[in-house]
């Protein structure tokens, strides 16, 4: 995971982006020469009808759910399986277990072939079989040329059914994870992400826990085997395949490949505690930066909430793209930041976090905080103008096609709805929901879901440059991000014991 960050840092140094991050009413004809002299003159014809191809859904007798989408553009086939249960349900004293599982599942190979042999075999074919562990699920996927499908499927099934979790690869994965822990305080953005979850969900919540040396050390090969046994059964799996194949043949192949696999115990949903930290200003002192990374954090919503649609419109107005209030007021007008944005977050199966963020030079730290507060006040005080509302809805509705412009996107949506038990036509409901949102709805949800007094203000920065400014805004709580030594007891999963206020 760290590698990606560092590569990003390297490429960021090479390539500078300029960002962070339906007006069909005009039908005036263009001039005789065919060149519009004003953008408003340009006619917008109706978008050609486009019905995305829904995947075929098959339920195998053992409960495995399979989605099939044919796409004959290129001689390629890819597939991905989501398996119920993820790090949200791992034991606190073994935080990191699911990530180690996701890594070692593939690198540890199968009973027949070591992970290294799999590497040789697959890479010679420009194919991939990969595994991973995430919050709510673990996953296994493949990607290959059509001609290699049978060979690759063989490996995929073998790894799914008979993983070996070889000890040497677990040791390597642990070493990698410990290195990641040792590097987590190097970049402001990484510190901010970790502390945002802690402040938002509470330090003991599974949604905020991170691996420590002690919790990594506590994970054994037996834990990985147990996890696999308890979770990886056909009735806990949703498997989607897309590519250059015939659905009937593929269905028969998969029925044969997975048919013999007996059902297992159904994975139950974890009960995750959420206990947000107290509101206030929290500071992490970082001596080697000249910019403060600022976050305001609160609890968001679940996507099932019917106010999701109004909140999406609100987010667009408030902190979406170039034309949002945060971008225009704090970046374009005030020049306070390059990266700014935010909104009320939503999760599929639990509340997301409301995050407003801005990165500004050390000297203007308090100005940026006040600027964000002002925007929050304004959002709650008055409804958006008709123009603002229209822009936001146009933005969502006119770009709607990009939710399903490739077969892979459609397939992924359907797998996700199945996994989290959402209606298959959720996208359509989303479109209809957004269309109905009024300015009054936006004002109402702003007041219902954005609570300035509950927001936790997090600042990662060079404290000596802004300590006086912040003290004027309210009591400041320092966060100690010192990484606990490996000898620390496993139950101390949250290191940042707070120092008394000063």
């Amino acid at each position, binding site marked *: 995971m760290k*590698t990606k960050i*560092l590569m990003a*840092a*390297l490429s960021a*140094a*090479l*390539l*500078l*982006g*300029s960002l962070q991050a*339906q*007006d069909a009413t005009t039908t005036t004809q263009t001039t005789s*020469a065919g060149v*519009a002299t*004003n*953008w408003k003159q*340009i*006619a917008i014809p109706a*978008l050609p009808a*486009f019905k995305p191809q829904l995947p075929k859904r098959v339920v195998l007798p053992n409960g495995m759910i399979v989605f099939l989408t044919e796409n004959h553009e290129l001689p390629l086939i890819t597939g991905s399986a989501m398996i119920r249960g993820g790090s949200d349900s791992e034991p606190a004293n073994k935080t990191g277990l699911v990530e180690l599982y996701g890594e070692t599942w593939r690198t540890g190979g199968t009973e027949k072939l070591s992970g290294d042999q799999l*590497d*040789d*075999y697959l*890479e*010679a*074919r*420009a194919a991939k079989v990969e595994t991973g562990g995430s919050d709510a699920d673990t996953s296994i996927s493949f990607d290959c*040329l059509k001609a290699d499908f049978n060979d690759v499927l063989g490996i995929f099934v073998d790894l799914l059914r008979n993983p070996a979790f070889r000890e040497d690869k677990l040791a390597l994965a642990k070493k*990698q994870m410990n*290195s*990641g822990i*040792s590097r987590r305080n*190097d*970049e*402001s953005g990484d510190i901010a992400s970790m502390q945002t979850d802690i402040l938002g969900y509470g330090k003991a919540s599974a949604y905020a826990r991170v691996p420590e040396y002690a919790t990594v050390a506590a994970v054994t090969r037996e834990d990985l085997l147990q996890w696999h046994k308890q979770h990886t059964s056909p009735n806990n799996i949703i498997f989607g395949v897309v590519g250059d194949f015939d659905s009937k043949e593929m269905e028969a192949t998969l029925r044969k490949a997975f048919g013999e696999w007996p059902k297992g115990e159904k994975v139950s949903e974890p009960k995750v505690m959420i206990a947000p930290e107290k509101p206030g200003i929290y500071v992490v*002192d*970082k*001596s*080697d*930066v*000249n*910019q403060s990374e600022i976050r305001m954090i609160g609890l968001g919503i679940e996507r099932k909430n019917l106010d999701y649609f109004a909140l999406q419109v609100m987010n667009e107005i408030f902190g979406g*793209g*170039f*034309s949002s209030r945060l971008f225009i007021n704090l970046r374009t007008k005030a*020049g*306070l*930041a*390059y990266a700014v944005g935010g909104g009320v977050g939503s999760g599929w199966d639990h509340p997301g976090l409301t995050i407003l963020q801005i*990165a*500004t030079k050390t000297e203007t730290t308090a100005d940026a905080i006040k600027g964000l507060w002002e925007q929050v006040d304004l959002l709650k005080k008055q409804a958006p103008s008709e123009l603002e509302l229209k822009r936001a809805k146009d*933005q969502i*509705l*006119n770009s709607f*096609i*990009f939710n*399903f*412009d490739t077969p892979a996107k459609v397939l992924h949506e359907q797998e996700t709805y199945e996994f989290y038990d959402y209606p298959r036509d959720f996208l359509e409901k989303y479109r209809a929901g957004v269309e109905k949102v009024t300015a009054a709805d936006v004002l109402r949800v702003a007041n219902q879901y954005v609570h300035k007094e509950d927001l936790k203000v997090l600042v990662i920065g060079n404290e000596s440059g802004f300590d006086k400014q912040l003290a004027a805004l309210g009591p400041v709580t320092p966060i100690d*991000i*010192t990484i606990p030594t490996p000898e620390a007891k496993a139950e101390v999963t949250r290191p940042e014991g707070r120092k008394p206020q000063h």
Partner: protein
Amino acid sequence: MRRLNAHLTLLVLFCALQTAFAQDLASFEKRVHVKTLANGLTVLLLDRPQAPVFSFFTVVDAGDAQDPYGKTGLAHMMEHMAFKGTNEIGTTDFTAEKAALARVEAAYAEYDRENSRVVNRDEKKIAELKAAWEKAREEADQYVVKNEFPEIIERNGGVGLNASTSLDSTQYFYSLPVNRLELWAYLESDRFLNPVMREFYKERDVVMEERRMRTDSSPTGRLVEQFLSVAYDGSPYHRPNIGYASDLRHFSATDAANFFKTYYVPSNMVVAVVGDLDVDKTFALVDRYFGRIPSGPKPEEYITAQTKQTSERRVTLHDPSQPFYVEGYQKPNFRDKDDVVYSVISGVMSEGRTSRLYRALVRDKKIAVAAAGFSGFPGDKYRNLYAFYAVPSQGHSATEMGAAIHEEIEKLKTDGVSPDELKMVKTRSKAALLRSLANNQGLAINLAENQLKYGDWRELFRRIDKIDAVTNEDVKRVANEVFVESNRTVGILETKSAAKGARQ
């Protein structure tokens, strides 16, 4: 996995891929259309009717390597200005705004001249001139409709709206539903026909924040900036493409306008559009709108050449951060006949879990979290670096990384690569290209970049044939020529504890 069997499969696969490739190239030959407009602009169109959407990529053959002396970061600044609108979009009264912007420039020139003085500085006068400049900015600002240009794109359903600048070039891109094709042609041509340098100095502040984020406040960002400044001299690659802080406080809207006039000419640009397009109609549309941009001479291409390196160079940073290691070797630009040999070297050394650096440093020695080599640091238009980097595992030093990388380089120089490795790299480059063909934005990027660099988009496919022709002897020869100590620059980030706060 029986070895013989594996070889046989590989052979069959090879043939299958080869055929798929020939077919794809032939099919692309028919589907990709190229035209040079009367004003010199090159346009590529590809009909890919999978969904009623399209993506485009505009690339300008100028980047921060073209920044004038004392004005580093200007190409990147110009990229930001391309979102500020035109004489029609982003203004309530362009006539009045134009006059007001001229007054801003006059006031800024006076202020900047005084403020740049070293001897006999008159602080009172400087403060007065600064106030006058700020007042002029406020006056000009009253005519601005904030972010109207990107707002039009966003409300019409634009996604992935962004741009980027490297030392070599500048690029603009986004995707829209296909019923907005004419609107796109209007907006994208207007931005290069009638650009306005409004809100320039406020945007300079934004770019300063970008610099703080990417470089000043990031340990690897700081290392990269120092490393490049040591690795290069003569060549503009020694500069940070975001610009030095002092230049970002100095250059003016007039400078940006001059840069624009010189480099944003049709003969210096390529536009590629990929999606659900009627090719003839789209060409007609593009011709009508982009044809409005006046032609101009291809800008002068001379830049100071990189000097030949004769001894190892080294930079070491002591920072409150975990260690990092990077080294680079000077090599010719992308037009060199051996360019594909470096691709093969990268494939063998860096791609996947079978790669030599992964296996040696990560899997076997267990001293690194990641290790890889890549060509073209920080660009490849001019003489550049083949770079290796490694992220040390906990408890291991940056210096250890250098030794382990050199061991692998020595093996490459002595024994080269095995037939299996060579085959694997060749197969994978074909498959990687195949996989890249199913994406409008990715295709637009590939077509435009190959057209710009080689004058022919087909190089995208021909490169695969060239990679196919690379031999073990080529790899050994290039490795022995280039990967030598006297041609090396080393960059090391070593841990120094912070005075307080963040530890470890």
